[in-house]
């Protein structure tokens, strides 16, 4: 397994911005030639990670597809904030059918393109974590198993945000949501790990699975590009903080996403045909607490008396994933 080499553009404490790079190494997003697949004026909240990620993903995919791209969108925040009739923020052909069927609809679109000789048109499906790991999992698993020529992108904000921040199968343990409030000695969302759809996707041995966050747009774009260079079923799982649902400051969206990876709670990696091929090693490891403390959904863990046991369990989960994926900065050669 190789690791993603450090690149000059990487930001954070070691910031070296886009402008220092050769023009052709800069992000699609920084280019005046970007497709602007989602225009401004939509109704996302301030600091919405999902809006940011969708824009970056779509523009990178548009570039990779040479503008020949169709997208299918599950019900959820992205769908609702981008298409309040009669307005639409989409500059690409866009279809919304239902909450749980985006993968199957996309399979149908891809089949249609093939059968009618328009193979040059690429298909990208997108859904929130609910539309992916919960209600959409049956259709998604079918799409993976058939290896249909679709790139499925999950914008994971760890809850049903569109309906008012209820828990999803991807909600982390201990988080407070509208239907798993911490009460008395209760901790909020039941203790589990949240479904790891990237690992479920890998079990289907599809050509490409990757995770990314909006904290590293270069990496996110590179993964879209890598996915688009392949055919068959591909899956990209993007962590997108939601200021409204997480109770984080809208100006902290990128910071929170970065801390999710630096704490080890959100491993960033790539896999091909079921095998991990690259991981993004953590460069400056932080305790999970640093990540949790920025979010009101975890506030109850730190009050008086607080739940140090839950924080410790989350830390153990991060440690486990760091070991599982080999993310430890110390091990770097």
């Amino acid at each position, binding site marked *: 397994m190789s690791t993603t080499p450090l690149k000059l553009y990487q930001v954070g404490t070691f910031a070296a911005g886009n402008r220092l790079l050769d023009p052709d190494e800069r992000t699609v997003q920084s280019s005046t030639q970007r497709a602007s697949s989602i225009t401004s004026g939509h109704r996302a909240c301030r600091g919405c990670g999902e809006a940011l990620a969708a824009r970056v993903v779509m523009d990178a995919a548009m570039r990779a597809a040479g503008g020949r791209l169709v997208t299918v969108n599950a019900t959820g925040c992205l769908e609702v904030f981008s298409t309040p009739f009669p307005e639409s923020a989409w500059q690409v*052909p866009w279809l919304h059918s239902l909450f749980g*069927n985006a993968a*199957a*609809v996309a*399979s149908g679109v891809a089949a249609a393109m093939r059968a009618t000789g328009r193979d040059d048109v690429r298909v990208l499906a997108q859904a929130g974590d609910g539309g992916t790991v919960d209600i959409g999992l049956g259709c998604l698993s079918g799409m993976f198993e058939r290896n*249909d020529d679709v790139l499925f992108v999950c914008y994971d904000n760890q809850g049903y945000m569109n309906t008012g921040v209820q828990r999803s199968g991807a909600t982390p343990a201990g988080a407070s949501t509208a239907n798993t409030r911490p009460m008395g000695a209760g901790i909020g969302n039941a203790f589990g790990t949240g479904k790891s759809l990237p690992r479920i996707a890998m079990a289907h041995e599809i050509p490409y699975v990757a995770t990314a966050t909006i904290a590293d747009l270069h990496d996110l774009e590179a993964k879209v590009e890598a996915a688009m260079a392949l055919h068959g079923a591909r899956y990209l799982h993007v962590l997108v903080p939601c200021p409204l649902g997480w109770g984080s400051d809208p100006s902290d969206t990128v910071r929170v996403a970065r801390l999710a990876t630096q704490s080890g709670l959100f491993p960033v990696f790539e896999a091909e045909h079921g095998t991990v091929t690259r991981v993004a090693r953590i460069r400056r490891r932080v305790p999970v607490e640093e990540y949790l403390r920025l979010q009101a959904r975890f506030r109850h863990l730190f009050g008086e008396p607080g739940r140090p046991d839950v924080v410790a369990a989350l830390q153990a989960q991060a440690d486990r994933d760091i070991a599982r994926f080999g993310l430890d900065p110390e091990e770097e050669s």
Partner: protein
Amino acid sequence: MLRQVEGSRAVAETVARCRPHVVAAYPISPQTHIVEALSELVGSGDLTACEYLTVESEFGALSACIGASAAGARAYTATASQGILFMAEALPNASGLGLPMVMTVANRALGAPINIWNDHSDALSQRDAGWLMLFASSNQEAVDLHVQAFALAERLSLPVMVCMDGFVLTHAVEEIDVPGQDEVDAFLPPFRARQWLDPDEPVTIGAMVGPEAFTEVKYLMAHRQLRALDDVSQVARDFAAAFGRDSGGLLRPYRTADADVVVVALGSVLGSLADVVDELRDEGLAVGALGVTCYRPWPLDEVRRALREVPRVVVLNRAFAVGSGSILGQDVRLSVPAATKVHDVVLGLGGRPLTHDVLRRLVLDVVAGQVGSDTLTFYDLDHQRVATELARELADVPSAGGAS
């Protein structure tokens, strides 16, 4: 050319002649032979330029058809019973988005209790989903309706359901004229979508619509449905001109002129019903039958006209609305004068045979005043078995005082 063939096979071959680009289906009895035959036709190269998707569920099947149709392709699926319920969320989505496609429903009962045999509970449970619903009275008509259904779907930009009785038609081997490729090509032009997901002219399909425009969108949908009645008739006339046989259309009246009693029904029972009508006419009873081919949209004016002068109407319901009454019967009641006696009869549920003798006895009982016109009558019910069960339930009920 006429040949001995199973109904399912004939339908599959006909669908293939309609050149669908995408077939997505999930197996369920009694639809299986149709989708098995289609997979074979695609696999053998008989049907080319077609993608056959072996989806993971009926919800996936219809969703794939939605994607395919929105991408400008001709899409087809087939299902029955639990399968149509599993699709339920996607059904009004396909019609609401105005996406043409064709689906065969091999009519079967709904559980529980699970039952694989024929009645109309499955299709009728989705009667308000915004699909056109055509019922085949024979395998020949089932074949012909599929050709007409693609023409209608694409002319109206609406999805069309072709209902054929499970087993009774799907598994019956008989002489059927399966249209040839040239005939179908001459009748059914290549599909040109009204709008599709075209990278050159991006459209947003499926936007969120609030209170300010929702009613108007729904009204336009209803309006297009009602207008479809003209198209159903026209396409049937065009079909008759092209293929030389009568199939489809709105209604199938049989000896209804001057009838004192007309039996209204959906589906394959019309064949036996016509025999019973002939027999009773020979015996001097003025009986007729009215088959409803186009169930949705409901051909209100045509049914009114057909039944206006008929004093007694018998409705054969092969499904009913639990806790409310009949389904087909309610549509009929809305279409006849207040003075008309409507004998609403449930029978033939879950595959209970609708034989010549049962139908004959039913008409005679109606004429003899044995069947009420103000309640729903379960005509082929085993009263004794029900009475025994009810008595037992009554005995089991704990007394109000609690301890016994």
